[in-house]
């Protein structure tokens, strides 16, 4: 019944609109106006609107920066993160300069040169100097960004190590993460999906000598100031290990091992004292208490950032960055593969 009445209403509305259109067209015809020809008045109105709305848009962007700028991630908690943020800030500066020059010019021209009776446009078909100028200037700006960008990229992807990084495996499956520490030998034992059985959820080859001291856990602890080399595997579909606070991300691809290295620089306890983080937590908790939800304390998180199925939106794990002593103490409490399997 509901559906029928909605359909009837829609049909009636359309018919009414058609009649209204008809009447307005006929009446303007009677007055001798040509309703659909663009008149000088239209040019004037629309040209002014271009300036108004266009500048409104540009100003609204400023407002968004002011109001929502605080929402961005807090300072990076990894060594390479500050290099990424430096490059990010430079790139943002450049594109914002271009944005705030080009958009106002566009809308100003749209207003300034709105059609008027009796004026004639200037015949200006090309100008090599001008065109050369705006080929070369972007090229120079891009050259800077490319060179700097590639520099950051290669230090990040091929880090030079003074000390050997701690090797940790992150294992992805629909829809959770498992961690495998390489233990005292800092070498992961061989593992493959063919060895998955019962409690051996990541498929460690127990025959491999290197696997005996491996530790398989559902918690991710990292020591501050130590380089960590993550190795990623997936048992089913592609996932992506996203560590936004560390400016790190790498896909987990079934049938392959990928890796990413970074050095955490701020412990969980320290970052909770960061003023941006504190404000963020306050804001969130104000919202949560109003809705009657649990209060939240800041934790670094690992998110899945590659569509992987129904619960993709909730494939997460907390990351705890602590001092080396705390880390060692925690790791020593964990059971090794030799003990559990």
């Amino acid at each position, binding site marked *: 019944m509901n559906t029928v009445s909605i359909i009837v209403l829609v049909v009636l509305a359309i018919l009414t609109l058609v009649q209204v259109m008809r009447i307005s067209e006929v009446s303007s015809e009677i007055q001798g106006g040509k309703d659909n020809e663009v008149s000088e008045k239209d040019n004037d109105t629309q040209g002014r609107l271009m300036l108004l709305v266009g500048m409104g848009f540009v100003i609204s962007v400023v407002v968004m920066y002011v109001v929502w700028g605080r929402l961005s991630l807090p300072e990076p908690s990894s060594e390479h993160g500050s290099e990424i943020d430096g490059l990010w800030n430079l790139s943002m500066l450049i594109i914002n300069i271009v944005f705030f020059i080009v958009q106002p010019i566009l809308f100003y021209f*749209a207003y300034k040169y709105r059609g008027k009776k009796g004026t004639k446009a200037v015949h200006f078909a090309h100008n090599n100097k001008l065109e050369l100028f705006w080929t070369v200037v972007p090229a120079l700006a891009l050259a800077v960004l490319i060179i700097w960008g590639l520099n950051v990229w290669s230090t990040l992807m091929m880090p030079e190590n003074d000390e050997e990084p701690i090797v940790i495996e992150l294992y992805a499956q629909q829809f959770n993460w498992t961690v495998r520490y390489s233990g005292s030998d800092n070498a992961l034992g061989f593992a493959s999906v063919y060895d998955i059985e019962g409690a051996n959820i990541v498929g460690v080859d127990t025959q491999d000598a290197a696997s005996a001291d491996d530790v398989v856990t559902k918690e991710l602890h990292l020591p501050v100031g130590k380089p960590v080399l993550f190795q990623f595997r997936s048992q089913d579909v592609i996932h992506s290990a996203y560590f936004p606070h560390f400016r790190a991300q790498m896909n987990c691809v079934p049938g392959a091992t990928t890796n990413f290295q970074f050095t955490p620089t701020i412990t969980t306890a320290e970052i909770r004292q960061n003023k941006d983080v504190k404000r963020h937590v306050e804001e969130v908790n104000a919202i949560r208490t109003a809705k009657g939800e649990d209060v939240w304390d800041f934790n670094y998180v690992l998110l899945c950032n590659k569509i992987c199925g129904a619960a993709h939106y909730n494939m997460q794990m907390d990351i705890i960055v602590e001092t080396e002593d705390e880390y060692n103490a925690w790791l020593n409490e964990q059971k090794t593969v030799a003990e559990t399997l």
Partner: protein
Amino acid sequence: MSTMSTKSTENPHFQDHLMEHHHEENFFTKYIFTMDHKMIGKQFLVTGMFMGIIGVMMSMLFRLELAYPEQSFPILEFFLGKWAPDGVMSPDMYLALVTIHGTIMVFFVLTAGLSGTFSNLLIPLQIGARDMASGFLNALSYWFFAMSSVVMVVSLFVESGPASAGWTVYPPLSALPQAMPGSGAGMTLWLVSMTLFIVGSLLGSLNYIVTVLNMRTKGMSMTRLPLTIWAFFVTAILGVLSFPVLLSAALLLMFDRLLGTSFYLSDIFMGGEVLSYSGGSPVLYQHLFWFLGHPEVYIILLPALGISSEVIATNSRKPIFGYRAMVGSILAIAFLSFIVWGHHMFITGMNPFLGSVFTFTTLLIAIPSAVKAFNYITTLWKGNIQYTPAMMFSIGLVSTFVTGGLTGVILGDSALDINVHDTYFVVAHFHIVMGLSAIFGMFAGVYHWFPKMYGRMMNKSMGYAHFWLTFITAYGVFFPMHFLGMAGLPRRYYSNTAFPMFDNLADINVLITYFAIIGGIAQLIFIFNFFYSIWRGPKAPQNPWKANSLEWTTPVEHLHGNWPGEIPMVHRWAYDYSKPGAEEDFIPQNVPLAEGEESGH
């Protein structure tokens, strides 16, 4: 109809030939199984609009979910039935809607609906040809597209749900029915639909290329072609070179799904057992997909840029600034678009050196893009701008092209991409630069060439209202998404409530959804105006915008073969607007040079 050469004008029998056919036309030969390029263009447009309505409605449904996660809405139950028990959208349905929305918008609306419509309508008319090189292939191209649309729509109704692995359908997620319900029959139909689509697109593109190369009227040298034709021509070349690669990617995926091959699959443990696939690589699929996927974004964008070049020049009453640079940048963009695909794969674990190469080539594309943007703006400078609705949308396009292009500089940089890859920053970027620019270009094209398509004018005031509502809500939807991305919010999340750190973004999501709903409803103005004007709009004059290109020398009433007499000969380029010494502020291409007049082109 076999007299398709530039010399067809000299064929005295052509006229009689036309007349004979005129009488035999009935409803089916005229509207359905037509081989006339103008009618085929309209078929593409109307089908594309139909798909567009579905795609936009889907986005409104999942925007509702994003603003009010896991809340109940009767409208969701109405549209989604069992996929929204008690009016709460299920996560599987969310992913399905996002996937089909993306597929429909990219391929059905902005590839077929945009390029298909205007290439068909304008190529013969603007180069001075009686029809496409092969009317039959052209009709076939539409029918493949139509079949593919039908299959895609049918896939929405299969028991296990439509494809839901994202519009990029990466395996193994898309390859294994155990991985998600949408990877069952829905995914098979998705692949069938895309295969049909690709065949149709290839038939169309080959036709466009041959037509532009061989059937230009006398005097229409390549450097006198309107920029629309350059854009359609290069787009067709891109399509011919890249769509076959997607076809092979889709076929291999089909084999993995149906025949048990392992092109993309290896070492998979699912449902308590190891599957029998081994030796394949999911990353191979990504290489194949993006080898099409990146050119595809220019297949979408170039026609829109071509249309806006034409509209901006005509309505500024000025020659397009830097015609040769515009053509050069189309060619440069097209070339570069084939060697940048890896920027979608920086974090797949591929060799870091490759990442560097792709960063370099990607950032190079910014140069020809910047040239285009500056040339548009200079075309406005000291113009005498006529604000037709088409002109408004073209200016809107320049704005979104600049805004969205700038964030590309960030995403193309491998080091920066690490932290915003697959976040809402990306969603903001590609919607603005590709989605909005192309949609604006498409609207500009419809408003500008409506008189040519239907012989009537669209209502101007509704056009203005449509533009302003669309422009404001479009930025209102997509600009704030940058800030979500910078806060680390991933895309393709059914709900953000699982992470308290995102709780303070909820307000922005609500705001975006308001804009999306208003913007979606505003499109009704356009749809109403379109259909009202088809039947009731005031009759169009022959050359309503006082434009130079050849399509405006044909009679308002369509006739098969386009020109009643001989095909006009071309004496100048398409941009002699406001030429000093001329009486009017435009000189159509078929007007011979006056005595002592310099042509320049």
